[in-house]
Each structure stands twice: as structure tokens, then as C-alpha cells.
């Protein structure tokens, strides 16, 4: 399915005039079974697409929340094969919700670009975000993904100027991911007016849906973003729920899903109220 599953989902949401709610969780966080219970239940909690983090030892674009999530997953034995198996298990019970794998280049490079793209496609993954691969270096990866009909999704940021925006949009499929803050994941929230202006800049160079993430922590902000962009990505706020639940000896899955449901509700009702 790959790219077409993402396109179908956005087309469906557009017909309903809904923004997509896109939760991000780290695969294998805090352990394989809890991670599965979270993933399996996310569509029921309102997830339209799911961003699945491929844990990496050196997540330099991530703030403390996601760093902790990745460290927990790795400590609990997460590896690339396990992440692919988790996606496969999800695809067996849900054929419609796109899964976007988000991570860093080295584990993918180590697996082999074409082998990885093939394995990811076979596991029912639809797209890939590689945080540390700039467009200048992305052709081998883009070729491999294209062969297996997977979407390459790139990040645009507030520091991406006009000339560069076109470079960023090149070879991108599925959607463009706009990073709403200048900084790492989980940073403090950006101003809604500023985000609106930035999203307009992305739309000038790409007709793809625009997702906004990094620094969306509250339901209020998620709703504001839903009125501006085509998708709202929420990551650190969900990963924090796992940290909190573990500290309080509560069920992390229940906490994450409660929070996801509340954010999904805010995103899905934003336009009707706005």
C-alpha cells in the first residue's frame, strides 16, 4: 500500500473536513508488550495516522522526553527486526491506518537501504522520516523507498528559507512535516499565528498535506494547529505519559491512550467549533 494508504487517509479526512490526529510513540517503549497494547489501541483512541519511532542510541533531534523513551525501548531489547515485527502485527489487525516510521539514518543504513525498504513495505509500513538525512544526501534512500512504493517524508523548519523550501519538498510524498519550533522535539510551544504563516510557505511549494509537530503539547494547541494544517503530530506529551505512569506504578498504556483520546477529540472537533 505505502504511499496510497497515506493518500487515501488524507483524502478521506478532507472529505469530512477533519484534520488528522497523528500520535508519535517509540516502538518498544517501555517494553514490547506494552508498546503493542498502545499501538493496537491508538486507532480506537482517534489516531488517523501513526508515527512510530525507531529507537536510536543518539537521538540528537529529540528532547529529553523522546530520549528517555528511546533509551527505555533499547534497554528493553528493541531492535530493528522487533520494530518491523511490531508494525506487521499491527497491519494484521488494521489495514487502513498508515504507519510512518520516524528515526535516524544509521540503523537503516546498517540494515541496507533496499533491504530495509523492502522489509518495511512487507511489514505494512507506509512512509519513512529520517531526521538526519538532508535532501542533498537523500537520493539513495529516496530511490530505495520509491522502489518499494514507500513515502519519503521530510521536515521543514522555521529556518528553511524560500529557496530551500523547494529543495526540501523535492521527492517528498505523502505529506510534508513542518517543525513548528526552532529546536528539538518537546520544546515549548510556538505561536499559532507564526505557525499559520509558516504553513502557508510550505503550501506555496507543495500541494501535499502539511503536518505540524514538535512543540504541540496541549489539547488547545493541537486544536489550533488542526485549524491551520492538515495534521497535528503529538509526540513528547504522549511519551511523557509513559514516564509518569512508570514513576507512579500505573499502566503506561492506559495513560497514553487517555491522553491520545483527549488530544484526538480536540483535533477532530477543532474545525467545527473554529
Amino acid at each position, binding site marked *: 500500500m505505502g504511499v496510497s494508504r497515506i493518500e487515501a487517509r488524507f483524502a478521506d479526512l478532507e472529505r469530512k473536513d477533519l484534520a488528522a490526529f497523528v500520535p508519535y510513540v517509540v516502538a518498544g517503549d517501555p517494553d514490547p508488550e506494552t508498546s503493542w497494547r498502545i499501538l493496537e489501541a491508538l486507532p480506537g483512541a482517534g489516531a488517523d495516522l501513526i508515527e512510530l519511532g525507531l529507537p*536510536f*542510541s*543518539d*537521538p*540528537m*533531534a529529540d*528532547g529529553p522526553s523522546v*530520549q528517555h523513551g528511546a*533509551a527505555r525501548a*533499547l534497554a528493553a531489547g528493541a*531492535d*530493528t527486526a522487533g520494530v518491523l515485527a511490531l508494525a506487521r502485527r499491527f497491519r494484521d489487525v488494521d489495514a487502513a491506518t498508515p504507519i510512518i516510521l520516524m528515526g535516524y*539514518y*544509521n*540503523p*537503516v*543504513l*546498517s*540494515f541496507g537501504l533496499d533491504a530495509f525498504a523492502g522489509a518495511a513495505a512487507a511489514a505494512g509500513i507506509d512512509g519513512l522520516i529520517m531526521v*538526519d538525512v*538532508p*535532501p*542533498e544526501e537523500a537520493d539513495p534512500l529516496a530511490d530505495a523507498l520509491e522502489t518499494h512504493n514507500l513515502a519519503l517524508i521530510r521536515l521543514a*523548519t522555521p*529556518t*528553511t*528559507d524560500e529557496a*530551500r523550501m523547494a529543495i526540501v519538498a523535492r521527492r517528498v510524498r505523502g505529506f510534508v512535516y513542518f517543525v513548528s*519550533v*526552532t*529546536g*528539538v522535539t518537546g*520544546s515549548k510551544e510556538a505561536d499559532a499565528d507564526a505557525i499559520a504563516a509558516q504553513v502557508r510557505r510550505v503550501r506555496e511549494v507543495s500541494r501535499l498535506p502539511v503536518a505540524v509537530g514538535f512543540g504541540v503539547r496541549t489539547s488547545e494547541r493541537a486544536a489550533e494547529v488542526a485549524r491551520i494544517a492538515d495534521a497535528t503530530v503529538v509526540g513528547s506529551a504522549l511519551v511523557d505519559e509513559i514516564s509518569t505512569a512508570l514513576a507512579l506504578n500505573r499502566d503506561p498504556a492506559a495513560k497514553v491512550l487517555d491522553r491520545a483520546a483527549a488530544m484526538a477529540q480536540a483535533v477532530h472537533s477543532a474545525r467545527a467549533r473554529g
Partner: protein
Amino acid sequence: MPLVLALEQAYTEAKADTAFQAELGGYLATYVGRPSPLYFASRLSKRHGARIWLKREELNHTGSHKINNCMGQILLARRMGKTRIIAETGAGQHGVAAATACTLFGLACVVYMGAVDIERQAPNVQRMRLLGAEVRPVESGSATLKDAMNEALRDWVANVSDTYYLIGSAAGPHPYPMMVRDFQTVIGREARVQILEAEGRLPDALVACVGGGSNAIGLFHPFLADETVRLYGVEASGEGMESGRHAAALNGGRPGVLHGAHSYLLQDLDGQVLEAHSISAGLDYPGIGPEHAFLRDAGRARYLTATDEEAVDAFALCTRLEGILPALESAHALAKLDEVAAETGRDGVIVLGLSGRGDKDLTAIAPRLEGR
């Protein structure tokens, strides 16, 4: 990316600007104390059986070659209008050099340093704080150099407008490996002139330690076209290659991507980066500058390894024979002099990059030297 593209452009312009080069040359001469001497180490020569010359980078202001690069980059940062400098450091040599350069120009300085390194390099932490730098401990990951670099990168992307990231090694995203190399080639350019004057010919071999590889590439680069000059880099093999606890990216790693550079990397089968291990905090990096990977694959340079124990032995030997306390990093290069001398022969001329001084390492090695 826009950050590093802007940096590349600013650096390209500065490099071609004679006023910039003249200003840098002035500071190197009067503040850093260049040229650094090339010293004939007669007792080490006798011991190892070759004509051994030490390129005395440890005599630079702040005690290592790191200041060469810091002076260059700080002038570039000023040119770019940046007011806040961030840096990562392992042994603290680069941190001290960066803090010093910032003090000289009244710039705010934040140094990221792994919590483990802060413990084993206490004197340098004190020096940085005395110089007015803020030393931020990094607890994530292995709490060493690579984690300090992660944290510095996170700071940089969040503070793009006023902040300059002063990387200390030939690692990180382009243009850093090239720029750091350029600023460090002063070592090799001087050494080339000095050895021609002293010996009337080119050396048979150059030897230098490699972590990220900045002092080695600085020494090697001006000799690359001289095919008769053999190049030896020495990686830290820690507790031994077979123990798995080492920092030898070229000898024990495979190609990978870390911190925006494609080079050899210590990693597991899944592509997760492994912790590097070395008694020397300055060599404790799981990657290596990409140009060293190129030189190795092209067969132009050879990369040997020295264990913690060999480095400590070489530290003691150099101290006792020459009255020079080498940094533990540089001691890795000294540890391979027997091996290199065996290849060059008794009349062979060897230039060794003595990249830093060892005062900072006394606490770390005191327990190991007891009873010797």
C-alpha cells in the same frame, strides 16, 4: 541544514580573505605562541632506534593543539556576528581552548561535557570555570564525548540566531571536518619546513594519535602528496580490541553515520552506536573524521592501535627520558614508536605529533603508575 550551509559560505569567504588569514596568523604568533618547536628527542631516539622528532603542540597556550582551531573558528564566529559560543569537550582540552578564545573576545561560552569526563578531568573543568565558561554536565547515553556532542547540537538548533557551535574535532557535519583540518594544518606546514631545515630531507614517517583525528589530519595533510612519507595514526584500543572495550573506529568499526558524518563508526549489528572506551577522554569517541576513513581505504595512511596500558607505559617513558609530560592522548602515538621505528630503520626520520601536555591526566594515571 540552513545553519551548516550558512557556515560553509561564511568559512569559504573567510578562507579567501587575506585580512582574515593575517588576523589569525597574528593571534597564532603572539597569543598561541606559534610556531611550535620541532624537538629532536635524542633519548627516545636511542631507545626506539630511529631519529625521532617531536612536534611540540603541548607548548601552545592552553597546552594542546586545540587552540589552533579555536582561534580560527572564534574569528569566524565574530565575522558572522555571533555572540554566544557553544562547544563539546571530552578531555577538556578543547573546552579550555574554546573558553580561552571566548574570554579573549568577551563572548559567552557554554561547554557541554559528559558527566563521566567531568569526573576524570577535574583540573580542566576548573580551568574552564575560572575562564568564565559555563560547563554543562551531560548525563545522557554514555555521558562522554559523543553525548556532549548530541547535547551541543540540540542547543545549536534551538539557538540558531545568536549561537556559534565550535566543534573541536575533525568530526560532525560538513564543513566542520574540512574547516577543522584547515585550521590544524598549521601543524604539518610548520613541521614540513622545520624538518627540511633540520634533516635536509622529508621524514620517513609521521605518527599521531587519532580520536576524532584533528591533530593527526593537521600533521598529515601537508605531506599527503609526498609519497615517501608514511603516515601512521594510532587509535585507542582501551582494554584491548578483543575485550570490545576500545575506541578504535577504523580498526574495530564499520561505515556508518553519526553527527552528520559518514565514516567508520563503532556500532552493534543493528546500527546502534556503541560506547567507546579509553583511559584517555580525548580519544573516547565512537566515530572518526571522514578524511581518515578515506586515507585508510585509499591505503595512504595506516592506523595502528595502542591499549590503555601501552599508553600509560609510554607516558612514563617520555616523562622519564625527555622530561616532557605528554597528554594521555599523545601517549598513544608514543606507544607505537617501536613499531614505526622497526619499519623506518635506525636512520629513519620520524615526526611525532605531541598534541598536548599531560598535567591534566595525573589523577587518572597516578594509581596505575604506583609501584613502578
